């Protein structure tokens, strides 16, 4: 049986190591499995301002309508 001829075993094993452990893994590691796009909530956060709001509008950019 030609599979039992051990003279070629080293070549086979080395080429398999190269392909399996290096080439294939480099190729697959480059795959990006990204998440599906989701809707973001557009609610503005509640600001805790003890002073008057008409003075704080410019100091709270997150509460401004975009």
């Amino acid at each position, binding site marked *: 049986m030609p*599979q039992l*001829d051990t003279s070629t075993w080293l070549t086979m*094993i080395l080429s398999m*190591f190269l*392909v399996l452990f290096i080439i294939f893994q480099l*190729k*697959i590691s480059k795959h990006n499995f990204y998440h599906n796009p989701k809707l973001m909530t557009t609610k503005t956060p509640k600001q805790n301002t003890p002073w008057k709001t008409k003075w704080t509008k410019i100091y709270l950019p997150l509460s401004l309508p975009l």
Partner: protein
Amino acid sequence: MNENLFASFITPMMFGLPLVTLIVLFPSLLFPTSNRLVNNRLISLQQWMLQLVLKQMMSIHNTKGQTWALMLMSLILFIGSTNLLGLLPHSFTPTTQLSMNLGMAIPLWAGAVITGFRNKTKASLAHFLPQGTPTPLIPMLVIIETISLFIQPVALAVRLTANITAGHLLIHLIGGATLALMSINTTTALITFIILILLTVLEFAVAMIQAYVFTLLVSLYLHDNT
């Protein structure tokens, strides 16, 4: 006829140069690297299939076991693509070589066992004695479990080699029979031709199943040990 039958399993070397390395490298050409955010159809299809297989195989593992995801995925892709390419006429299938399959099975199995030994020594030693064995049977059972542990990599390699080699040999034999029968009795040749077609369909299935089984077993050995 013996000489001729096994001729397709001789490792291809050209004047001492290892042609076989190019043959082993070829399946990786069929899986292009994904460079962009949105890839072409081929890469997207392959990525989708890869994600399907990934979810199926790695969901049973814990965090430690899931670090092997890259290794197991490249393993199943390598064995599957190599086996399927071997079904082309006159091609050389590297997975028919016992050397390569041993080279795949032994390091992966040893890695799983040594990981289990280093991190969960008591639990991995406990595998040698199943629960609830009667006391007089214990020494014999430990010996049996040790033998069954050490035979796992050999079984992995020989299973893959034997399945693919046997399939290829059957295709050779029945194809040769069909060819020889065509000039003698066409009806019988038709029957053998139908057998050949069924066999080829079986071999397609076997090619993919063997890849799956190999990877599944390595993943099971990993699950036991993480």
